């Protein structure tokens, strides 16, 4: 009997990346819409296959990343994407595995400048998916205002981001994934309305 020494995945670098990118694009163009990335995440290993799938799609040696809450995910992302580990304040992508890391990640994330607002972090947050109330969101991509059920991680992250009072176009963009394979994005212009 031989033990498998290397972790294997069957995420296709060309076709699964393309499919996941289009789902990400659909999500960020239509905040409040939940897209299903389970089929693609299931092709990856580890405790955070949804976060890893997003990393495989968007990261490479031209990007820096930082992680809250999982050394093994950090090692997997570095090995599979060749992206470099960065301090949180310099990272293009920040992955948050547990909601305990949300506040610090958002407070330290780079938010671009008025001249170069794209030089800001995308914060990708693992949420447990359990409903913790609802929020009404409004902004580009949303027809009027739409109320959606949200997890505690989404609530915490949106409250924390609003507290930063960024001067638009500065800001950070948020992506949430759940272990059920759900993905939702809340770009910087989308706000919680009372």
């Amino acid at each position: 009997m031989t033990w498998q020494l290397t972790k294997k995945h069957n995420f296709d670098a060309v076709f699964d990346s393309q499919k996941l990118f289009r789902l990400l694009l659909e999500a960020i163009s239509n905040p409040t819409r939940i897209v299903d990335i389970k089929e693609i995440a299931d092709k990856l290993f580890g405790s955070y296959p949804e976060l890893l799938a997003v990393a495989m799609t968007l990261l490479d040696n031209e990007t820096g990343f930082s992680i809250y809450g999982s050394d093994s995910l950090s090692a997997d992302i570095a090995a599979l994407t060749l992206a470099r580990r960065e301090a949180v304040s310099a990272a293009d992508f920040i992955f948050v595995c547990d909601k305990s890391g949300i506040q610090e990640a958002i407070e330290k994330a780079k938010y671009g400048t008025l001249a170069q607002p794209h030089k800001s972090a995308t914060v990708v947050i693992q949420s447990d998916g359990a409903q913790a109330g609802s929020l009404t969101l409004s902004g580009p991509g949303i027809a009027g205002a739409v109320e959606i059920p949200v997890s505690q991680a989404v609530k915490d992250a949106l409250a924390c981001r609003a507290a930063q009072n960024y001067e638009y176009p500065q800001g950070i963009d948020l992506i949430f994934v759940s272990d059920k394979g759900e993905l939702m994005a809340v770009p910087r212009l989308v706000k919680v309305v009372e």
Partner: protein
Amino acid sequence: MNSNYNYAFLDEGSKREIRRSVLKAVAIPGYQVPFGSRELPIGRGWGTGGIQLTLSLIGPADTLKVIDQGSDESVNAVNIKKFVGLCTDVETTNDTRKATLIQTRHRIPEIPLRNGQILVLQVPIPEPLRIVEPCEEATKKMHAEKDYAPMWLQLYESLVKYKKVTIPTEYPCMVEGRYMMNPSPIPKFDNPKLHRAECLYLFGAGREKKIYAIPPHTEVVSLAFDDIPFERESFAGKKCRLCGSENTYLDEIFDPQTGERFFQCSDTSYCQEVRRHVSE
């Protein structure tokens, strides 16, 4: 599919960079995100920015439509379809409703696009402020400071001088009240289609290496003054000689043989559809 090429021609690193830029562009509507434009084996004037966007977006589930000046059958449109087909094997269509991905130059289709469809527009000069400020560093600063006064002044002066705004295409608009944006060389007729649309608009400028976007349900307002509203081209009293439409953008065609002038729909697939319905 020609297997000497990577799927969709571009290498995966190039696609990833463009994809990251696209997500940023959607998050900051109307802002021009820089990207590292690649050389493509196609002629100048084909709109490499639009093609690079299409190649970074496209996958086996897509159906592609390509139009140039409203026509699916123009040499440019056919060549782009051939090129993308050669390196992806995706289905192509002339039917606006069947397309998931539409690459275009100079027009937005007459049929309202639905949510889920993506319109990729080719842009030669992405900077709306270029007509008042030649220097790139200066226009960047103007966008950063939302200093659009020189552009408003230019509009005002043309109103005083010519009694109307003398910008036929690339008529600038404000996106979400923050960024002034060049909608690409579409006629003013198409500008209102950008406002609170259902579909996603992506703009690609290859030579200037910029990508920008208008997501669905985004406020896009063509520049105007309180007392002088924005006006589209008017085709009042004219109609398409082929399908009879009175509500489409019409091309004026001159027949040098007969000296006759007539009008027909610039959106050829729409025109054909109307004629099909009439004959049924």
